[in-house]
């Protein structure tokens, strides 16, 4: 498609009625915002659940207002663990980085008017929404939400309520919710891949795509392949529970003195299938954030991304290798120890492209002229957190050390720092960066900075101590520590973590206040407040329905032309033709 062709939809054609404009809109920008608001709702729920968990761990005897009966029971704690993990991993970290910002900005950044399949896009969102409310329903069945963790290992999750409270209807609802989510994700991935391959504007070669687009594209491929496997695994689990099959259940199971009528299945099969999905899933959660960080670091350092090609290749390498390492979640699972060594080598090797990205981020900032706006602060914070979280992974990648650290708080520290903090910092960077474009208004910079400082210090205070708790050997998913001889010495540390968690959670109110207030009352935003180079910054804030008002750009240069020697401005937009040293006539302003 070249800029002379008219888009299939006239830019003046607007959908009629509230439902078509805002609820069932097929405009990718509206869909992106819908995902963003769903993720904000989900993260609020997820944080509340985690605060209840932390309260209980620090002060187990305290009566809690929301808990039926006052003092939290172990099954209630485990239900919180399960639902917190499920909500955060699926409905925050899989939706927001990819589907909120990706949906909004992928088409615009490649110069396209729309996603490849707009109606499918809207369906994906609504299925995700249905999945979310279906999941929440698990809290309201009589026996409560499932207690098997977001990982739902069998046979604990495969036999029904004989294994524990919440394993009946609660677990079934959980599985159904996840299946719906899988379908939504697969459809969305198809959209992203098709759009990126087919709908780039003239001149937008692969090597001129912003790194955000690379990240969304590779993430979509991971999503497509990984969610298919989870979908299959979830169906098999449902069959085991409700239709008498035995995919994951061996013979001779005796639960509560009752012999179970299953045979021939393997609990390890569930783990293989789940983690074959589960490991790419964590890269789905982090890759878009990596793209945003590269993008933001370049913008606010006024320098190109250091080693753009290596960065794009590293995204692809991380995506590819991400499919080969799932067994590192299973070193002590009973899997062959030879397999463990193989997975260990592969896992260590995935550290290489990750390290390349980290070096190149520092290389991007080095020699720059850094403007410390809040998107930049969160991007730098991401780099620090990714270093910390990535390095703790080196310990876990070795089976010999996993003997000591598996299923302890060390693992909890590791995945929270990379997923719960770094990935979320990527989301904050994206939000602060693109807010002016999405809403046509600026966020309050003072509140934004306050939010950053409290969150950066706060999250480190929450999760660094967990490494030490794990090194001492305290297991995870424990409702209480009273039965553990060596846990009493760790109680002060748990209380410190809980206090830090409450302070940090309170700091997020600053963000919410700033976000919603600025939507209505923020200072009006110019088209390009950050003097950025990529295509979303050449169109209005917010963009018109077809993104470019009919005047589709032709791309002449790469995405990070900052401070190019000889140029008149310290940035050159991607669609700027001609000699970069050309002086612009003064009547152009």
């Amino acid at each position: 498609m070249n800029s002379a062709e008219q888009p299939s939809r006239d830019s003046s054609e607007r959908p009629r009625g509230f439902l078509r404009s805002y609820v069932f809109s097929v405009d990718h920008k509206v869909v992106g915002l819908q995902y963003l608001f769903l993720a904000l709702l989900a993260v609020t729920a997820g944080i509340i659940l985690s605060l209840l968990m932390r309260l209980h761990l620090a002060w187990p005897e305290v009566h809690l207002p929301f808990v039926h009966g006052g003092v939290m029971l172990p099954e209630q704690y485990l239900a919180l663990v399960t639902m917190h993990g499920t909500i955060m991993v699926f409905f925050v970290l899989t939706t927001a980085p990819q589907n909120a910002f990706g949906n909004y900005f992928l088409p615009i950044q490649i110069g396209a008017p729309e996603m490849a399949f707009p109606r499918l896009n809207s369906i994906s969102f609504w299925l995700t929404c249905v999945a979310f409310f279906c999941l929440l329903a698990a809290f309201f069945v009589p026996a409560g939400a499932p207690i098997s963790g977001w990982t739902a290992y069998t046979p604990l999750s495969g036999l029904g309520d004989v294994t524990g409270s919440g394993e009946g209807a609660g677990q079934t609802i959980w599985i159904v919710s996840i299946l719906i989510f899988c379908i939504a994700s697969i459809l969305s991935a198809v959209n992203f891949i098709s759009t990126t391959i087919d709908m780039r504007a003239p001149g937008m070669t692969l090597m001129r795509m912003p790194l955000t687009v690379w990240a969304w594209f590779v993430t979509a491929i991971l999503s497509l392949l990984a969610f298919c496997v989870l979908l299959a695994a979830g169906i098999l689990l449902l069959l085991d529970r409700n239709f008498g099959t035995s995919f994951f259940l061996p013979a001779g199971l005796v639960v509560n003195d009752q012999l179970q009528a299953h045979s021939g299945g393997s609990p390890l099969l569930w783990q293989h299938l789940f983690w074959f999905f589960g490991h790419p899933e964590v890269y789905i959660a982090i890759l878009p954030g990596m793209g945003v960080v590269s993008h933001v670091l370049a913008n606010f350092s006024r320098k190109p991304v250091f080693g753009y090609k290596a960065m794009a290749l590293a995204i692809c390498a991380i995506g590819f290798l991400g499919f080969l390492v799932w067994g590192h979640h299973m070193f002590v699972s009973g899997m062959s120890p030879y397999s463990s060594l193989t997975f260990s080598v592969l896992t260590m090797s995935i550290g290489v492209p990750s390290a390349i990205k980290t070096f190149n981020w520092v290389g991007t900032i080095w020699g720059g002229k850094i403007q410390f706006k809040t998107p930049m602060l969160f991007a730098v914070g991401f780099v620090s957190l990714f270093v910390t979280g990535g390095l703790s992974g080196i310990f876990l990648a070795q089976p010999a050390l996993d003997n000591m650290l598996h299923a302890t708080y060390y693992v909890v520290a590791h995945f929270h720092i990379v997923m719960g903090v770094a990935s979320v910092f990527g989301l904050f960077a994206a939000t602060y960066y693109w807010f002016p474009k999405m809403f046509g208004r600026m966020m309050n910079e003072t509140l934004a900075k306050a939010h950053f400082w409290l969150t950066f210090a706060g999250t480190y205070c929450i999760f660094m101590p967990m490494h030490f708790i794990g090194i001492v050997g305290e297991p995870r998913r424990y409702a209480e520590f009273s039965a553990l001889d060596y846990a009493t010495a760790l109680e002060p540390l748990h209380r410190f973590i809980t206090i830090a968690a409450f302070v940090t959670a309170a700091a997020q109110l600053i963000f919410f206040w700033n976000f919603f207030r600025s939507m209505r009352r923020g200072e009006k935003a110019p088209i390009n407040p950050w003097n950025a180079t990529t295509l979303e910054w050449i169109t209005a804030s917010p963009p018109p329905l077809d993104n470019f008002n009919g005047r589709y750009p032709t791309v002449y240069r790469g995405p990070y032309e900052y401070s190019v020697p000889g140029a008149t401005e310290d940035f050159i937009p991607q669609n700027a033709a001609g000699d970069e040293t050309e002086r612009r006539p003064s009547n152009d302003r």
Partner: protein
Amino acid sequence: MQSFRASFAGQGGATGALRASGREEGSAAPAAILALLLTILVLATIYIFAARLFLPPAAITSIGLQVDHQYLLTLCATGAVFVLAQLALALTVFRFRDHGQPVRFSRGNIAMEVVWTAATMAVFLGLGMSGRKAWAETRFAAPAADVVQVEVTENQFDYSFRYPGADGKFGRLVPEMISPATGNPLGLDENDPGGKDDIVTASLTVPVNRPVELLIRAQDVIHNFFVRELRLQQDAVPGMIVPLNFTATTIGRYEIVCTQLCGMEHHRMHSYLNVVSDADYRVFLARQAAPQ
């Protein structure tokens, strides 16, 4: 030319929140605070590790000491990278804050990419290789001739330990015969003569300095067997029997905990490993074998 001009139409160049040239007011403060926070992070972390504030208990096997050695090696390598990376970040954000300086333009440096990629690969693969032995010896090695075999059965929510008794044979287990109420929690087949002298206990007693092989299994859901002092843990998976080998070198009582989420009482599921002298072990076996 046309599109170049057109793309600038309406751009908020002069009114944008970022100035293309000139100094941004007050950028020294965020830079300084960020650098300071990163430095505090590094110093606090170094202190906590150097002062050895949080340590697991001492290892009681020689392989456990190898695991500790590998842990220390990994800690040194990753610790060095952690310190250097965080401080490099701190230094960079502070040094290159906008104070009116020109940008040092660069698109990258292939030589540097090659060097740091190779260095990273060498460190990571080196660490991976050096940790192989500590894993292999507990998982691959065939047990010695005088090995003490103990079968570990886990269920919601306790541990049972079965010794083969004087005949050295484990009796057959039949799930249908499991009946804790009548004193047969493991489902020992009464008709199997090999099981007549089997000893079943609630805690694990082993002799010091003798190779021990645990045969780990589960009755209902996945559990786990973890002893910190052994530097060993292993999931107990229904339908499988997983061997685990160790030789304890220090007499004492050590806690066994379950680390694999197994249900509502997961946090209460624990037992004890008693490492005793040879003499005490013989006494233990004799006392257990005596008719009740």
